[in-house]
């Protein structure tokens, strides 16, 4: 978030200081929330790195998948709700935004930066697969927002 100021009066300076204070608090709050999601990504990766913690028919999460999930979380717009994070048996990392069973979207981060996603918004069941190239696809952002609307 950037602040552009043009005023030079005392009032303008006070306003600028106030705005910067709000911005710092906002950044801190989002960082804490985002940090929890990032920690969960690392925990999911570490859990499957320890081979004894996964069964024979499960696949360990690679560092490539972990890094893609980290970049995805870091690319979420400021102030966006953060996902619940979990490991999947096929070696993907699942990011989920859940409000209730009919207001939910899941994004599965896989190898080669591939995202598989599916949502349920009422009776609507959109889904897709897309390559993640450093920006969260607009369609996914819109469905995350819709999970929490209304």
């Amino acid at each position: 978030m950037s602040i552009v100021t043009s005023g030079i009066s005392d009032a303008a300076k006070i306003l600028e200081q106030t705005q910067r204070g709000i911005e710092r608090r906002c950044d801190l709050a989002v960082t804490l929330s985002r940090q929890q999601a990032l920690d969960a990504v690392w925990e999911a990766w570490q859990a499957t790195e320890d081979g004894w913690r996964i069964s024979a028919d499960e696949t360990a999460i690679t560092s490539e998948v972990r890094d893609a999930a980290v970049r995805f979380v870091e690319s979420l717009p400021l102030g966006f709700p953060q996902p619940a994070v979990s490991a999947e048996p096929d070696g993907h990392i699942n990011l989920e935004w859940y409000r209730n069973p009919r207001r939910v979207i899941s994004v599965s981060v896989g190898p080669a930066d591939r995202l598989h996603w599916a949502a349920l918004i009422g009776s609507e069941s959109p889904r897709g697969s897309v390559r993640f190239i450093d920006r969260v696809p607009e369609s996914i952002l819109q469905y995350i927002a819709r999970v929490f609307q209304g």
Partner: protein
Amino acid sequence: MIDPEQIPDVADNESLARFIVNSNEKRPDGKVSHKLFMPYKWVELSVNRHREATLEETWQVGSDVAKQRSKTLFGLANIRANKCRFETLNVIPDPILPGNPNHANITGYPTAKEDQMALATQLAASIEGQLDRASATERLMNC
């Protein structure tokens, strides 16, 4: 349990149990995650028919399944068969004899992961009830 010599088709109104053997398949609000209905490497998914089975028998099957997979049985989620018949999905008997004539499969999962996720999410939203270990034990003791 169902007579192994006469396995009927799965009727639309039958209740089916899906065993919860991973902690992340349950949600904090008591609902289940779509992960419970993901087939992952397969295109079909195991369920157990309640038809002609006592809760104790069904629970024993779940315990055996968990043991075979070196997992913990956290509970079971119930879903009506007709809720498993949409898009490409169907439910068919798949008795595992001699031990479990009530076994069935939800078949017809597509291979694309996003399609599997979408169907699994709809199945998770159609759950009619679930039992955790404590409530099942209590009910069994009261039988």
